[in-house]
């Protein structure tokens, strides 16, 4: 395992060793410099960060070089490399298995570390920054150890191997393999930055006023990438997996969703801290939970204890990740116990019917949601440990619990945006919610008009209309006051995100509840009808190259465009991969898959047709969430970012 081979193997491993040294020295420099207030030592910190990033980029380049030159002396290349993989998928093959994806994690982490070190280089004398840097380097050190030990990408392979199987067929089938994993990883790894500042705040026992905003912005940045990565993952699943779904509550999907939930809780409740100076310890705990859940998720899905479509082969990375998770949790809990009292703020929240109250309710719901997903993910492990029997917790369980939680969150999204800080009267709510409520009524009337049935989807449409009304009301008021600037800032950008979320909720409710499907056997020259659409089979097209045989069935939909669902057989893997073909419209998608067995010599093809309403709106809603996140990241016009905001509020207002 530890032996290396080839020039790129040796160089890559050497680079990782240099990086480890850089990270360890960086950590010591941060700690020593901070403890002794030694500016000279602290000035070294950014340089060690630079050393780490150069080393990691070097290692990554070595890996890519080995992959591109098909250096089969490396075990990793033997596992995921193949002479027949096209250049693009060969490039992405670097992160198609465990060792390479940990290397990518390391690369992003090193880049984050160097950005933080240089951005705040003039403020390193602030102990909060010093301790945050030490935390960043500590996490770096751990990941360098992973890449040098249990997840060594440069291990020497068996002698005499001249070709490999290439990456998993699903990872050489769609361009999204280039985007989804790195973007998701930026989201995961980015959560290290707010975590580091949270640890810094706990150790120094103060929250340096400006740092709250910086931390919030980094958390929002990571949250945005995590959101975008998750949505891209759903899109990929839809385009590639052939069951016409975007989300299967697979353990790896859950592992990305759980930190997303706690991160979402944080970006809401941090606003209470900005405005009222309260919930400081709670917010720090949410940041710590988010980061440690990314590590726990990585442990659950990458150590082989749980399996899923995303799972890589077994490795001995598990104990390392579990230990790291344990250390983070113990240290954080210890720090909160030690310093928490010092950070606690004196104020109180006056009334549950207030903006603050709504944020707390939001936190309860997101917390419970995260717990449900985590429980469902690890429950098979618990049952196996206690009763030594296999159990599967699948989609229906998660759907049953996610639906009521989602609907409750929608209720909150209806009311919360119009709530004032501190206290709201019933009369005020009746006034402000009047037109949004009518938007909800309009939505239910419209849904009934187009034939919607079922309580849960109709409730979603009604509340969706209501919540969208509340968000639009907020945006309309803000733009009336401030023009286009009324779209910028955390509250207003947040409303744009809300609208995106509502669109996604409506699209999910419609597509989950009203998808209809039918298997049809088509014969050339005899168009068939299903769901008001016609399907005419034209011919099979067979394509062959070194790595795969692909059979496409060309089908004319509604007498117009030609769609070609395919089945591919990857010769190295012997696995059949279906590739769907989708006609997207604003109201619905027509999703076609070719069903095995395919007999190319005949003139009949069996296809499965899914008619899925409103699917396109999932991606539109996702795009809107992205736009809203960017708008929210810009400071609003109300307050300069340097103003102190978390000073205790004078008490007289609450009497």
């Amino acid at each position, binding site marked *: 395992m530890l032996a290396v081979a080839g020039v790129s193997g040796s160089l890559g491993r050497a680079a990782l060793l240099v990086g480890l040294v850089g990270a360890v020295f960086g950590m010591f420099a941060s700690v020593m410099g901070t403890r002794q207030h030694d500016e000279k030592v602290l000035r070294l910190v950014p340089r060690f960060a630079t050393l780490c990033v150069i080393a990691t980029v070097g290692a990554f380049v070595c890996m890519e070089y080995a992959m591109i030159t098909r250096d089969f002396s490396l075990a990793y290349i033997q596992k995921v490399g193949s002479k027949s993989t096209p250049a693009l998928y060969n490039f992405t093959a670097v992160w198609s298995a465990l060792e390479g994806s940990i290397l990518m994690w390391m690369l992003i982490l090193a880049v984050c570390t160097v950005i933080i070190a240089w951005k705040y280089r003039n403020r390193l004398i602030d102990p909060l920054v010093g301790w945050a840097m030490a935390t960043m380097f500590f996490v770096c050190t751990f990941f360098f150890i992973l890449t040098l030990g249990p997840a060594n990408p440069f291990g020497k392979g068996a002698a005499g191997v001249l070709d490999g199987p290439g990456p998993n067929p699903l990872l050489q089938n769609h361009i999204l393999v280039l985007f989804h994993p790195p973007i998701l990883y930026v989201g995961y790894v980015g959560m290290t930055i707010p975590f580091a500042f949270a640890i810094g705040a706990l150790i120094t026992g103060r929250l340096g006023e400006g740092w709250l905003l910086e931390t919030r912005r980094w958390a929002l940045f990571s949250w945005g990438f995590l959101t975008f990565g998750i949505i891209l993952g759903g899109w990929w699943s839809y385009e590639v997996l*052939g*069951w016409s*779904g975007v989300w*299967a509550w*697979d*353990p790896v999907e859950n592992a990305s969703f759980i930190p997303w939930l706690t991160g979402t809780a944080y970006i809401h409740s941090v606003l209470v801290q900005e405005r009222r100076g309260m919930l400081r310890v709670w917010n720090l705990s949410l940041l710590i939970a988010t980061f440690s859940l990314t590590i726990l998720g990585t442990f659950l899905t990458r150590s082989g204890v*749980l*399996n*899923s*479509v995303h799972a890589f082969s077994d490795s001995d990375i598990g104990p390392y990740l579990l230990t790291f998770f344990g250390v983070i949790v113990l240290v954080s809990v210890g720090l909160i116990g030690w310093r928490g009292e010092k950070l606690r703020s004196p104020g*109180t*929240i006056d009334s*549950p019917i207030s903006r603050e109250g709504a944020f*707390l309710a939001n936190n*309860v719901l997101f*917390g*419970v949601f995260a*717990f*449900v997903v985590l*429980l*469902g993910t690890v*429950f098979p492990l*618990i*049952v196996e440990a206690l*009763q030594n029997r*296999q*159990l*599967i*917790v*699948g*989609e*229906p*369980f998660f759907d*049953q*619990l996610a639906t009521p939680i989602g609907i409750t969150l929608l209720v909150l999204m209806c009311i919360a945006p119009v709530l004032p800080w501190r206290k709201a009267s019933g009369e005020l709510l*009746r*006034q402000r919610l*009047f037109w949004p*409520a009518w938007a*909800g*009524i309009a939505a*239910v009337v419209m*849904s*009934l008009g187009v034939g*919607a*049935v*079922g*309580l849960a989807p*109709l*409730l979603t449409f*009604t509340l969706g209309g209501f919540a969208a009304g509340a968000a639009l009301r907020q945006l309309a008021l803000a733009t009336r006051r401030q023009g286009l600037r009324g779209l910028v800032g955390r509250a207003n950008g947040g409303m744009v995100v809300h609208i995106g979320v509502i669109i996604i909720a409506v699209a999910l409710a419609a597509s989950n509840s009203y*998808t*209809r*499907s*039918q*298997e049809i056997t088509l014969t050339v020259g005899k168009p068939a009808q299903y769901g008001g659409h016609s399907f005419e089979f034209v011919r099979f097209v067979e394509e062959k190259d070194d790595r795969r045989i692909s059979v496409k069935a060309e089908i004319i939909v509604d007498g117009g465009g030609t769609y070609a669902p395919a089945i591919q057989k990857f010769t190295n893997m012997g696995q*059949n991969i279906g590739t769907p073909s989708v006609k997207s419209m604003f109201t619905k998608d027509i999703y076609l898959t070719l069903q095995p067995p395919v007999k190319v010599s005949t003139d009949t093809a069996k296809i499965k047709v899914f008619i899925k309403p409103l699917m396109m709106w999932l991606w539109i809603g996702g795009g809107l969430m992205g736009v809203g996140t960017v708008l929210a990241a810009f400071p609003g016009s109300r307050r300069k970012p340097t103003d102190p905001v978390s000073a205790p509020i004078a*008490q007289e207002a*609450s*009497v």
Partner: protein
Amino acid sequence: MMSALSKKLKAWPVWMLMGILVVALLAVGAGRQSGPLTQEDRIDNVTQRLACPTCDGESVYVSQAPASQNIRNEVARQVASGQRTDDEIVAFIESSFGGQVLLVPRATGLDALIWVLPIAVLVCCTAGLALTFRRWKREQGGQASDADRALVAQLLELDTDPTDSL
């Protein structure tokens, strides 16, 4: 300022009417038939509740593995024969294929925990939040205890001397 008409429009009675309207509309929508399910729809519904025996955590509906294909074919046969309901088909598949084919944990024994724990956590969190609000309310109320009033009065008395001299 708000006009009197607008104020009247947005008062309780109108809200009550709106609530009744929504409930009525939802009842209409929840009650009406969605049109007959095709056999394919029923097959999809049933296979979504069954686990693929050879893959990891996928449903038969999602999976493309041959073992899932077998189960799907069996479900299709059962649906086509029209003898059994969806629940009965699931039970039949469970008994004839053996092993772990259910995707939803039962509500008995240890497995019941997966249903009980989320509710317990929700109740605990909500109760915790409610208690915190009560504490906050008490803290606000506590500012005017008798001892506080006495202290304030005492200080005010001390305060009178300098103001008199001004």
